Structures are given as structure tokens and as C-alpha cells.
């Protein structure tokens, strides 16, 4: 299969179809509405089902219902709508149900705007709903990576019986790039004997619930969940590094910001500055290894984000005091430019002082 030119939101939808997702429940919200519309047209073609819910709350609970039958199911939204899904996401974790949830992040807080942002980092990585939990979060930076990570997201969800979040920013959802959908070699088989599909032929009643009234029982359940999260931390870390081997300073950025940062790094290297990049692909579990490998020899890190500084907290934890961590971010849907990031590099690494009226 050759390459096709598509919009990010549609790429994500088609990748889900390629991952055998046949059920989608969602509610329109900009800037991810193309994903909803694509699923409405595409799923019936492959014998699946698209249903527009009355709200994001209903949509995530329809996902919960469909997931309880063991099928691959997805929903998507953008920041304000994603907030509404938090209740259902906590229940999915508590009841150990697999599902893929997409957040194409836009500017906030409140209604904010519809421009690209990364200001939901805390919400997706620290557990936006109630209770002690973590969810694997994948953050693609190219449209081809959307394809690959979406396919993987469904496998991770089934493997751990857990929701998985794909976090993109509005720019990634709206941009067009050529992508290739590789046919799946072989579908992995996952145990679905827990699914509530009726008891015919499989013995006694099965129950899907997150309720444990007895404190000791609930603690035991939490201990099992924590074991699962620990396994995810072992198995599901993903990142990419660029020019870190000889780097004096390392930029940390994810999603589309990482692409812009890479251009700034190339420009800096032309002037002789040794700058590298760590690009977390899994935002949770956060990649600690590339920091452990570099933190004793670099002069510092710069976290660059489309937020007022959220990922920087995880960067600081990973650096653990071994080197200074600087920050550059834009908020409200403003995308940092290559020039701004370059100037930040010069300020930090080149010893020069630049004034940035709009920078933070």
C-alpha cells in the first residue's frame, strides 16, 4: 500500500480502523470534528458502528458499555470535552476495561479557544479523574507516527485491560502529510473471557464493576492496579533522542513542538552550539532513561511546551537535581516559532541575553 495525503484527524480515525476498532462513540468538538465525521462515514463501510452521543459524558459511558463486551472501541474529544470524560475514564480504569481515548488539545482553561495547545499535560499524565491511577499516554509528532501509535494503542489497551490516551495538539489534527497504512501482519490475540456478553456457553455470571465496599478488598484491588502500572512503567516507555551524544544542552519537547525545536537545534548546530533533543513519545510512563544517561554530563535542559510549564515537572524529576532545567513556553494557542526557540537556546547556551516580550 502506497502513501496517501491525509489530514491528521482523519489519519487517526483510519489508523483505528486498521487496528480493528469497529465501534466509535463521540461528540463533536473543534479541533477534532473531522475525526468524528470520518468515523461516521467509514465505520459502516467495514461493518462497524458509529454513534453520536448526546454529550461527552454519554459518549465515554457508551465506550464503557461497548468495552465491557470485549470489542475494540474508541472515543475522541478536545480539551473541554475531554474534561467531561474524566468520570468515565476513572471508571474504565477501576473496572479494568480497554479503550482508546483521543485528546486533540486546544487552548484553555475554560472554553479557551480552538488553537493548538499542550496545556492538558497534567490532566492526561497525572490522572484527571478521581482515584489513584495512571493511563498510558502516547504523543505523536508526525502523521505517520499517529498511524503507528494508534495501532499500538489498541494493543496496549487490550494487553493491560486499560484505557490508553492519544494526545495530540490541534496543529497535528489539522495538518496534512503523506502517510502509509501498513497492513497488520497478524492480529495479536488477547484474553477476553472476562467480557460480559451473556453467560450462554461460558458458565456462571460475570461481573464488571469498580465497586469494593470493603476497605481491605479495595486496597487489594488498588495494589493489583499499582502492579499493573509498574509493569507499564517497565514495558511501555517510548522516546526518541536527536543529537544528544555530544550535547551540552538538551531541549525536551513532544508532539509538534518537538519538530519545531528540531529545526531550531539544527540552526544552533550550524553556529557550533551542541544542542540535542529528547522527545518523550510516551508522556506517561515518562522516559527517565535518556535523562539518566545525559544528566551528569550536560550543562542543562530546556523544556519547550505549548503550556505555562507542565512537562517541566517530570523533566525536573528525571534530572533529579543533576543539571539546571530551563523553560520556554507559549500559551493560549500560540505556537512557539523556530526563531523563538533558537533565541532561547542562544540565551541559555550562548550566554547572550535576549528580550522576549511574549515569552514566559
Amino acid at each position: 500500500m502506497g502513501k496517501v495525503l491525509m489530514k491528521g484527524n482523519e489519519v487517526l480515525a483510519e489508523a483505528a480502523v486498521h487496528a480493528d476498532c469497529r465501534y466509535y462513540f463521540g461528540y463533536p468538538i473543534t479541533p477534532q470534528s473531522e475525526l468524528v465525521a470520518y468515523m461516521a462515514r467509514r465505520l459502516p463501510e467495514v461493518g462497524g458502528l458509529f454513534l453520536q452521543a448526546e454529550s461527552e459524558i454519554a459518549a465515554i459511558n457508551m465506550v464503557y458499555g461497548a468495552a465491557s463486551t470485549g470489542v475494540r472501541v474508541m472515543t475522541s474529544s478536545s480539551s473541554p470535552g475531554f474534561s467531561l470524560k474524566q468520570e468515565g475514564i476513572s471508571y474504565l480504569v477501576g473496572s479494568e476495561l480497554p479503550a482508546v481515548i483521543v485528546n486533540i488539545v486546544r487552548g484553555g482553561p475554560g472554553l479557551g479557544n480552538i488553537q493548538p495547545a499542550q496545556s492538558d499535560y497534567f490532566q492526561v499524565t497525572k490522572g484527571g479523574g478521581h482515584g489513584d491511577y495512571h493511563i498510558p499516554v502516547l504523543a505523536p509528532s508526525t502523521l505517520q507516527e499517529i498511524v503507528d501509535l494508534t495501532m499500538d494503542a489498541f494493543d496496549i489497551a487490550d494487553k493491560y485491560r486499560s484505557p490508553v490516551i492519544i494526545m495530540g495538539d490541534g496543529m497535528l489534527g489539522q495538518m496534512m502529510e503523506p502517510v502509509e497504512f501498513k497492513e497488520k501482519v497478524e492480529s495479536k490475540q488477547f484474553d477476553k473471557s472476562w467480557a460480559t456478553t451473556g453467560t450462554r456457553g461460558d458458565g456462571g455470571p460475570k461481573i464488571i464493576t469498580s465497586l469494593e465496599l470493603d476497605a481491605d478488598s479495595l486496597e487489594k484491588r488498588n495494589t493489583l492496579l499499582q502492579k499493573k502500572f509498574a509493569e507499564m512503567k517497565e514495558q511501555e516507555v517510548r522516546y526518541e533522542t536527536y543529537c544528544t551524544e555530544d550535547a551540552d544542552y538538551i531541549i525536551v519537547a513532544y508532539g509538534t513542538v518537538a519538530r519545531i525545536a528540531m529545526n531550531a537545534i539544527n540552526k544552533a548546530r550550524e553556529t557550533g552550539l551542541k544542542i540535542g533533543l529528547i522527545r518523550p513519545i510516551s508522556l506517561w510512563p515518562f522516559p527517565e532513561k535518556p535523562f539518566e544517561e545525559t544528566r551528569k554530563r550536560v550543562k542543562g535542559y530546556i523544556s519547550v511546551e505549548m503550556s505555562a510549564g507542565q512537562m517541566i515537572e517530570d523533566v525536573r524529576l528525571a534530572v533529579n537535581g543533576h543539571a539546571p532545567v530551563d523553560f520556554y513556553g507559549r500559551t493560549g494557542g500560540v505556537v512557539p516559532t523556530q526563531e523563538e526557540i533558537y533565541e532561547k537556546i542562544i540565551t541559555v547556551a550562548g550566554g547572550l541575553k535576549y528580550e522576549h516580550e511574549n515569552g514566559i
Partner: protein
Amino acid sequence: MSMKTVFERTTGLTEKPTHYCPGCTHGLIHRLVGEVLEEMDILEDTIGVAAVGCSVLSYEYFNCDMTQAAHGRAPAVATGIKRVLPNRFIFTYQGDGDLASIGISEIIHAAARGEKITVIFVNNAIYGMTGGQMAPTSLIGQKTATTPDGRNASVQGLPIRVSEMLATLDGSAYIERVSTHDVPHILKAKKAIRKAFETQKQGLGLSLVEVLSTCPTNWGLDPHESLDWVRDAMIPVYPLGVYKNEAGGN
């Protein structure tokens, strides 16, 4: 001398003793649902959705696959299940706090979409599990933990008549309000529940049975007085009867 069996435990329920208060009619409504599932021989093809409230543990009592939903969201969860498994029987079992308050949006839209699910809606005009607070279905003048001087229409608004409201939606196919205050009405309630599942079998749309029920603990009445209160206070506000019957017949 041989004994004739005149009554047996339904296979529609597990053998676990329920946690319900003395005089609460949840247990017998469970039994009616269990008997209908057994008599229709659909237990193995049924998935129930438990709600939040006193009936949250109903998943331990119904002898079929069960999924527990967040507060008020049972119709959305049931929608997700039914859309994946159109040939299974899906029911929700929800109280009035769950369905008529926090979940009013989910039930209205499930009905509007004509979801082919059956809703057992237990209305006892109060929040039970959380300790007797006002529900949208509480009667005017009814004293609850959050209306200590009685529900005042000018402050807390007026009761919602769910059956009448949902019957106005074209997607609802069978809607009946029944009561549990005496044996003839209990038998009638069972017929309504049967009819609701038959409606689902025919794929006609959403079926809902509103069952007027008791809450002696939070009403501050004994079990007998509670049954009288259903008859004398609730039924005048919530008239019994069939509000929608797309299948026709009795």
C-alpha cells in the same frame, strides 16, 4: 404424604441474601425481573446494567452477566452494550435519584434514539443509599434530609413524572407505571416487566417500567405504613397505567 411445590426460588436470582432494609420492595422487584428472565428463558442471553444507589449491588443478585455503571449513566452504558450485541437482552435497573436526577439526560436520549433496551425504574421518591435526601420525584411537602421542612414547590420545584415525559418521545415503545403496595399490583407489575422485555425482543424501541416502591428507613414509616403511603400519597401524584404501547395488546 407428598408435598406439592407451590413456590420456588427463581433461577433468575443468585442465592446471595440481599442487603436491602426490611420493608423495602427492591428485593421483590428483583424477583419479578428474575422470574421474567427465567420464564422467557433468556437469562443466558441477558446483560444487566446496575446503577448507583441502593441497587448498586444488584449485580450480585441477578443471575446473569452484569456491568456496573456510573451514577445516572446506565442507559449510555446499556446503549454501548446493545449496539455491540443487538441480539442480547439488555436491561438497566435504576432508582429515581440515578435516573431522574443525575441521569435524566442519558435516559431521555436513550429513549429518543429508541434504544432497544429495557429500563426498570424504581421510584421511591427519595435518595436511599446516601441517607434520605430529596429526589426530583419527592412529593410536595415530603420531609427529607435536605428538605427538613418538607419539599416546597417555590424553592425545590415540582416532581418529575418520568413515564409521562418519556412517553412523548417517539423512540419509546413501551412505558408503564406500576406499584408494589399489594399483591394484585405486584402481579400487574410482573406482567408489565414481561411486556417490557417482549417489546425489546420485538425490537420496537425503549421499554421502561416505572415501579413505585417503598423506603421505610428514610420515610420514617414502618413497612406496612410505607405500603399505604405508596397507595395514598404517591399514586395520586404518579398515576398508574400504560403510557406507551407500540406493540399493542395487554
